[in-house]
C-alpha cells in the first residue's frame, strides 16, 4: 500500500481521488455502488442560487473516447441542495467539495454565503468555484475566459467563506493563456486550482444535417481530452515553479479512466485528481482508479507526495 495521503494547502485528505462535478450527481446514486467516504472527497454537481431545469434534449452526443454534454447546469438551487443533498452527505460522513456557480459574480457570493451559514457546512472540505459558466453581465462570456471576471468572482466568494475554507477555481482550457487566469484567481484568494473543465464542441448529426445537441454547443469530456488536461496542469505547475504564479495545489481532472491516467496528471503537477466521464462507463470508476493508482505507485516505489510534479524533474534537458 502506497501512502496516498495528499495535502492541498491546509487540507489533508486520506487519498487524492475525487468525483468530478456534474459526473456523480449529489451522491446517493453512486452510494448504491460504493461507500462515498472511501473517496478523498466527493465533488457535488454545480449548484446555483435558484432551481434550474437545464437545456432541452438531446443533451448528449457520443464522440471518440468521449462525449459532448449540454446539460445547462440543471439543479435544485442552493436552498434545496443544502436541505436535502448536503445534509445527506453530512449524515453519511462524506468529505465534500461543493461546486458553486452564478449568472453574476454576486450570485456566486450569495451561494457561498448560504453554504457557509448551513449547519451541514462542517462536512465541506472546500469550495470549487465553477467559473467556466457564462457571465450574464458580460454578454454571456464565460467568467474563466477573462482574468478580471475570474478575479472578481473568487474575491467575492472569498469574503463569504471562513478564512480556513479552501477555494479551488475551476479553469477552462478554452483560453489563450490559462496561466493568466490561474494567476488572476490565485491573486484574488483562490487557495487552489481545479483544471480542466470541458472544452467547447459541436457535433453535427449527418442524418438530419443539423447540430446533434438541442443546445448546439456542448462540453467535450472523456479520455479524448486527457492530454489537454495534462498540458494545462503542466503549464500552471511550470509557472508556479518559475515564480510567475504563487504556488497553490492543483486538482487535476480530464479524461482519467485508470490509475495510470491519474498518475499522468499527478506527475504533471496535480496533488489530487477527479474522475468524471469514466464514471458513466463504470460506476465504480472512482474507487477503481484509487486502487489502480495505489498499485501503480507501489510498482514505482513512490508515495503520492513523491509523484506530484515528478515529470518536471525528470524531463530531458535539451
Amino acid at each position: 500500500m502506497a501512502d496516498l495521503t495528499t495535502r492541498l494547502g491546509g487540507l489533508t485528505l486520506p487519498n487524492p481521488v475525487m468525483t468530478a462535478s456534474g459526473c456523480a450527481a449529489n451522491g446517493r446514486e453512486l452510494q448504491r455502488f460504493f461507500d462515498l467516504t472511501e473517496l478523498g472527497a466527493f465533488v457535488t454537481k454545480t449548484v446555483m442560487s435558484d432551481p434550474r431545469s437545464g437545456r432541452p434534449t438531446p443533451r448528449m452526443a457520443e464522440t471518440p473516447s468521449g462525449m459532448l454534454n449540454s446539460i445547462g447546469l440543471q439543479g435544485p438551487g442552493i436552498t434545496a441542495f443544502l436541505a436535502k443533498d448536503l445534509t445527506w452527505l453530512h449524515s453519511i460522513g462524506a468529505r465534500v467539495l461543493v461546486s458553486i456557480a452564478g449568472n453574476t459574480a454576486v450570485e456566486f457570493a450569495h451561494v457561498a454565503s448560504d453554504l457557509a451559514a448551513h449547519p451541514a457546512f462542517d462536512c465541506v472540505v472546500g469550495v470549487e468555484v465553477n467559473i467556466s459558466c457564462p457571465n450574464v453581465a458580460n454578454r454571456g462570456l464565460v467568467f474563466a475566459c477573462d482574468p478580471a471576471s475570474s478575479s472578481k468572482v473568487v474575491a467575492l466568494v472569498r469574503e463569504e467563506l471562513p478564512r480556513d475554507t479552501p477555494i479551488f477555481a475551476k479553469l477552462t482550457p478554452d483560453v489563450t493563456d490559462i496561466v493568466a487566469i490561474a494567476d488572476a484567481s490565485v491573486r484574488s484568494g483562490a487557495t487552489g486550482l481545479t483544471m480542466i473543465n470541458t472544452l467547447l464542441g459541436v457535433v453535427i448529426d449527418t442524418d438530419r444535417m443539423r447540430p446533434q445537441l438541442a443546445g448546439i454547443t456542448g462540453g467535450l469530456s472523456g479520455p479524448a481530452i486527457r492530454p489537454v488536461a495534462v498540458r494545462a496542469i503542466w503549464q500552471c505547475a511550470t509557472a508556479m515553479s518559475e515564480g510567475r504564479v504563487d504556488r497553490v495545489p492543483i486538482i487535476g481532472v480530464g479524461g482519467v479512466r485508470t490509475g495510470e491516467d491519474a498518475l499522468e496528471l499527478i506527475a504533471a503537477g496535480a496533488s489530487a485528481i477527479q474522475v468524471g466521464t469514466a464514471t458513466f462507463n463504470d460506476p465504480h470508476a472512482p474507487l477503481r482508479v484509487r486502487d489502480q493508482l495505489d498499485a501503480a505507485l507501489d510498482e514505482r516505489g513512490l508515495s503520492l507526495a513523491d509523484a506530484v510534479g515528478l515529470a518536471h524533474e525528470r524531463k530531458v534537458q535539451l
Partner: protein
Amino acid sequence: MKDVVQVTGEVIATRRVGAYHHLTLVAPGVAELARPGQFVALAVGGDTSSTLLRRCFSLHKVSPSGAYGGTLDIVIAAKGPGTQWLSTLRAHDEVDVVAPLGRPFPIPSEPVACVLVGGGYGSAPLFWLAAVLRTKGCHVEMVLGAASEDRLFGVVEARRSADGVTVTTDDGSAGVKGWVSDVLPEIITRTHAAVVYGCGPMGMLRSITEVATAHGAVAQVAVEESMACGVGVCMTCVMPITGNDGQTRMVRSCVEGPVFRGDRVRWEAFTDGVCRVPADAVGAAKPAAQGGH
C-alpha cells in the same frame, strides 16, 4: 440491501429474431432483484473501448437459477456502433452489466383487465409483465405493432403469454394494416381494461396514452430517451413530467422512470427530434440565463 449489481456477464446464447438480436447473458445477482419494466446498462467495446457510454435495454426476461447461474435476456436492434458490437458477441464473450435499473411497471392490486402494447422490439419486457399480471388474476391482451413483419418481436411468445393477441403492421405484411392506436379502442372497450401498458417509440406511447385516457384507462409507459450512464448521474435522459403536486420538472428517465404514467408526460414538448423545456417547468430558463454545461 443492495438493489443493483455490477457484474461481468457472460454471453451464453445469441440468436437472430427477425430484424433483431436476442442475447442471453449469465449475470449473477440480477434476476433476484429485477422486475418487469426495469432495464440493464451494458458497457460496449471492452475495457479499452473508445465508446464509453452505456447502452440501455429493457430486461426481456430473467432467470434466477439454471445450469449457468442467474441469466438475463435482452433484445437489441443493431443500428449504431454500440449495438453493432453487441450483435457480434458470441458464446463466452464477456460484457459488463449494471442491473436492474429504473422503476418497474406498477402492478394493479386488483385482478383487472390489462392491455400490453409493444412497438417493434419495445415488446421485449411485456411477456414477462404478462406472466406477472396473470398470476395476479388479470385478463391480459397484447397488441404488437411494427412497420413490417420482420420488425415485430415475440408474436409466438405473445400467444402463450396473453389471453388475446392483436398484431398490426404499417405495411399490412402481418396482422391488421395500420397502427396499434387503430385497434386499441376496441380492445379497451371489449375487455373493460383498467390499465394500458406500453413500450416502444415515443410517438406510439403518446397515442397509447391519448387512447387509454379517452377510454377511461390508465396508461403506464416505458419511455425511450438516450442515456449516457443509466444510473442517474449524467442528467442527459431527462424529460418533462408532471408530479403529484401539479408541477412539471425535467426528471431523469433512468431513475424516476423509465415507466411513467402516460398522462404525466408532457408529450407536446417532443417535436422534431427535440424535447423542449416547458415554460412552466420548475426552473425553466429565462432567456438571459441560459448556457453552461
